[in-house]
């Protein structure tokens, strides 16, 4: 089993000008790795991260869009798997961090911690589907996963993390949205 922050550190080594959509615990761990204007945190409603990512992917087919979604969030928007597969954006990489927990809401378990998201994504019609449980394997494969023609899906099986501090005022600061739009126009 991996740790989310370790996975993100491995991922970050391969990213340059991609847009990263993340929420809740994933956003906290991602932001801890450093500020970047092309981070997209203002999702507004749990589960919509993947839909925002689809909009970005359709709007900017020249840029890679990386969605870091929690398992609880995906469960709130399972239909997005079918929508994304049908829209078939080649530039979308959808990474689901599965720890079986609504971590930001008190670490209660999701209804079925054994749910197989990769199987769902495969059945929905994603172009490439992966599953990672070992950090060494993810580190070795990350560059390949990020370069594949999408939509690409991967489940990252991780442990529950230690309690995080959720600074939502910072994550959802309107200045981040202004900076993101400016960065997208400039890139």
């Amino acid at each position, binding site marked *: 089993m991996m740790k989310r922050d370790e996975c993100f550190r491995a991922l970050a080594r391969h990213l340059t000008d991609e847009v990263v959509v993340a929420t809740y615990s994933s956003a906290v761990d991602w932001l801890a790795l450093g500020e970047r204007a092309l981070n*997209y945190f*203002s*999702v*507004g*409603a749990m*589960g*919509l*991260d*993947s*839909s*925002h*990512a*689809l*909009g*970005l*992917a*359709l*709007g*900017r087919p020249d840029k890679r869009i990386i969605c870091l979604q929690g398992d609880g969030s995906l469960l709130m*928007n399972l*239909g*997005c798997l*079918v*929508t994304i597969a*049908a*829209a078939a954006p080649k530039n979308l990489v959808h990474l689901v961090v599965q720890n079986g927990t609504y971590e930001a809401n008190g670490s209660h378990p999701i209804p079925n911690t054994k749910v197989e998201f990769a199987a769902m994504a495969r059945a929905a019609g994603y172009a490439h589907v992966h599953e990672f449980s070992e950090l060494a394997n993810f580190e070795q494969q990350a560059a390949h996963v990020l370069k594949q023609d999408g939509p690409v899906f991967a489940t990252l099986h991780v442990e529950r993390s230690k309690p995080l501090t959720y600074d939502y005022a910072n994550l*959802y600061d*309107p200045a981040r*949205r202004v900076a*993101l*739009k400016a960065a*997208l*126009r400039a890139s």
Partner: protein
Amino acid sequence: MDADLLEAGDDTIELKGSSIIAAIKASGVEFILSVPDIVTSGGLLRPIARDPAFKLIRVCKEDECIGIASGLSYCDKRALTLIQYTGFLDSINAIRGVAVEYRQPICMMIGLLGHDPSTTPRNSPRYGVRIIEPVLDAMGVPHHLINEDADVAKICPAIEDAYAASHPVALLIGRRPSTS
């Protein structure tokens, strides 16, 4: 009489689907995000699906449209969410967060299934329709009733204003647009 039950020959007041589509195009909308709605199915969604000027994204649940439209707006791409009022009600939390609190230009065209087009939505015999405008008012979302051809002129300025000032807008379709 319910809009969803009106036969083409029964309704003497016209709302041309082609006029609405022309107004949507004139507004610079490129993406249509939709879950089918019987009020707008024949007059809007079918011709839009055949029109190469639009990119139609069929979604599974209406709140997906709010996220997709927001992502597109960051890329300076315009989108119209074409849904039924039931889907609007189901999407209220997404609209609250994305469109209202984050002030994103989310443009919604909402079919009032079961509405009596001879009266106002607030006086609709159907509870679900009756609450739509009060809900929009409570959320601070501007809205316009598109009930007959003369109302089509409201569409383009409403969408332009939503994108210029970055706020949501709801265009309420009060009767079935014609297929011509």
